[in-house]
């Protein structure tokens, strides 16, 4: 009965077919994505062009930041519903500052980041210290931050900003706009943090089993606090980028973005129970949603139908992922 295996066995060599099959199943979302890309490229001549690719990336950038923040929050088993409103509040704060500070670019940037950080920290504090469920906490913040956005503009958008305010979104570096570069950097940095640092491992650990993590010496409260704070800061930056693109602060900006961000994370394979998911997954989920948006636009599908189709694709994509996960594990 004591079959003692002295060494940790190396995974056995599997035949080629099984290997590729396993690979495809593990990266099922990339496969789905490629199929969708192929479909659009076949149907629309304008889809597979460098210009259009750039368009997709530009549209993805503001979503990317909040989806990344959302990824961390969801990994801990929480959810951040407030990101859309925090974007609006930060955008309004930045616009207000820009209007009053003239050509100084640091002040609006600071205003947006601080607003986001403040909102995120309040979320984090309430969730980690007082144990209020994240859903409730951030639902409250959603309403609160949206109110603040309107208060800042006195119920109206802030127009007539100095043109320099547009440089956040419209400056180009190496042919890419600043938000796109920021998105790429954010993805790379967060992917590294989540995969290779103490912090990342701890986030996964408290999402997987908070009590076990605490017993192993993880300070779960500070980690929980931090993910909401990070999500807030990223929402602040995202709001600034959106406002800068149109050089206007609109209090209804970012409305409903939280849902697309959550969809991107979930399509990326994260579990809403926490502990499972990756930054790369979210990046793929994000590009998937943006590709669908863009492709349907090019095919001149009416907006309401786009919404219907997107809804179906989101659920179907996650359904495929759940199926693949079950296959992959066996």
């Amino acid at each position, binding site marked *: 009965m004591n079959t003692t295996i002295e060494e*940790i*066995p190396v995974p056995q060599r599997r035949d080629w077919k099984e290997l590729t099959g396993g690979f495809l199943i593990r990266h099922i979302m990339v496969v789905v994505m490629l199929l969708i890309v192929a479909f659009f490229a076949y149907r629309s001549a304008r889809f597979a062009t460098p210009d259009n690719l750039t368009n997709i990336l530009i549209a993805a950038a503001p979503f990317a930041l909040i989806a990344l923040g959302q990824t961390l929050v969801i990994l801990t088993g929480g959810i951040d519903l407030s990101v859309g409103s925090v974007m609006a509040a930060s955008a309004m704060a930045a616009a207000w500052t820009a209007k009053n500070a003239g050509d100084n670019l640091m002040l609006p940037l600071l205003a947006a980041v601080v607003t986001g950080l403040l909102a995120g920290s309040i979320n984090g504090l309430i969730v980690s210290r007082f144990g209020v469920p994240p859903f409730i906490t951030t639902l409250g913040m959603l309403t609160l931050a949206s109110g603040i956005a309107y208060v800042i503009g006195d119920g109206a958008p802030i127009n007539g900003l100095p043109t320099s305010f547009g440089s956040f979104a419209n400056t180009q570096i190496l042919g890419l706009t600043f938000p796109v570069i920021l998105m790429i950097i954010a993805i790379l940095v967060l992917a590294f943090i989540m995969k290779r640092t103490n*912090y990342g*491992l701890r986030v996964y650990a408290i999402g997987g089993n908070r009590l076990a993590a605490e017993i192993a*010496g993880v*300070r779960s409260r500070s980690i929980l606090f931090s993910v909401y704070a990070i999500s807030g800061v990223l929402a602040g930056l995202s709001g600034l980028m959106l406002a800068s693109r149109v050089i206007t602060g609109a209090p209804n900006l970012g409305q409903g973005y939280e849902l697309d961000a959550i969809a991107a994370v979930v399509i990326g394979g994260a579990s809403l129970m926490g502990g499972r998911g990756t930054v790369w997954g979210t990046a793929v989920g994000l590009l998937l949603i943006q590709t669908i948006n863009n492709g349907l636009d090019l095919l001149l599908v009416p907006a309401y139908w786009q919404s219907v189709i997107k809804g179906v694709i989101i659920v179907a994509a996650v359904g495929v992922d759940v199926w693949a996960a079950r296959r992959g594990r066996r």
Partner: protein
Amino acid sequence: MKVSTVRSDDSIPVIPMLECSGITMSFGGIPVLRGITFTLEPGTVTALAGENGAGKSTLMKIASGQYRPDDGEVRVRGQHLHSGNTQAAYSLGVAIVPQELASIPELMVYENLFIGRELRNNFGVLDRRSMIKAASGYLEDFGLDTDPKTRMGALPVGVRQIIEIIKATNRGARVLLLDEPTSAIAEREVARLARIVRSLRDQGVAILFTTHKMEEIRAMADRVVVLRDGKLVSDTPLADITDDGIVTAMIGRELDQLFPDRPESGADTVLEVDNVVIAQGSEPISFSVKRGEILGLAGLVGAGRTELIECIYGIRKPVSGTVRVSGTPLKAGAPLSSIARKLAIVPEDRKGAGAVLSLSVLDNATLPRIAAFSKFGIIQGRKRRETIGAIMKSMRLKSDGLDQHLENLSGGNQQKVVFGRWLTGQVDALLLDEPTRGVDVGARSEIYRIITELSSAGMAVVMASSDMPEILSLSHRAFVMRELGVVGELDRAQLDCPNVQDTIFRLASGQSAAPVKDTTP
């Protein structure tokens, strides 16, 4: 035992209620049950005895249709049971009362009793009044004075269990499977349970219950079936077997091989527990553990063993008192400082508190000493892989490599990871809470080997366990706990006495002449 098939209608042979034949099952290549064959007759109570990991619960789950055996067949009153279908088992009259009770705590007692077959009035609306009335009748029949309008979750486990039994038998269960019915209930409740079991037996119900406690077998059963290591080793009427016979059958000759030799303990004190009061009004606890010494904590469920361990480690804040490791006091309620003081814990609830199942072996093992594997917060991949690989090799971990997620490992291997993750650094005192719960026999002997190796390497070990042989064979010294206090201490010589189990049981249940408070309500 085979029963002849029914030939004519006028001769009424006793059709067995439940027949298991050749049940074989393995999990992940490890055999759990090997060709189990037995039958249950109507109006009998059978004890299914065996040590932890003998395969009792698995057999119960197969008999109730929850698991599909790899081989073999279950027949209920002559009909084949399609496994993997609890509903089918239910309609054939097999009901299981699992260890983790399946009642709905937020609903009231009568709602729990009638769920799924609610009474309705002529308008199709719930007839609560009739249900309450019927429910209070049932409760009375079973000797419970509980109000049917009590919330289920507010009741003690023992009462909830009886309500589960009522629920099952009301729905026509003729075969009642009770999985560890007494593991979580108080002494007084055991007597009541035994009474109910006997009265159901007299009504012709066939009852099978699992246990590893001798007293319960004597109190309830007519017959005892013993499993060891997945094999049926004994199946006899209770009258034909002695207590010793049952124990020998349960433990087998393996007891000697199961436990390694106990090394000598050292001289200098490592862990000191000084007047720790676990809860308001409980007795203060003081003791010290030497280098290389294993202190066993025995007692019934709820006696305070887990609470004491948690107080020492700092997951739970005691009312008062201090814990010192090598002379330095620990900060209460701060696991991180305990780890820094070279204290380690293997908690009772592996899935809930020990391991993060969604993480890999590597990540789980990194967690407690993450700083040792990183520079500026960045994990040093090679270093940790080497260190942890070597430790898991010494643990004889069976896995597909360090990147395998813990949820795909067996209980025993998960436990090895929970042990091994501490060994990436120096440990002075090791706290173990039920170290072999849910661990199969093969892995258990390895865990015993690990425990003794660690203690002989100089760790002070405190081990809480409900497994009597574990306490008796591994500890240098043992405490018996009751009501959050220590009620007795046994040294090595006393632990070797033949009647020591009885002594421990008396102390644990408060029946001894030892200075124990009277607790009659």
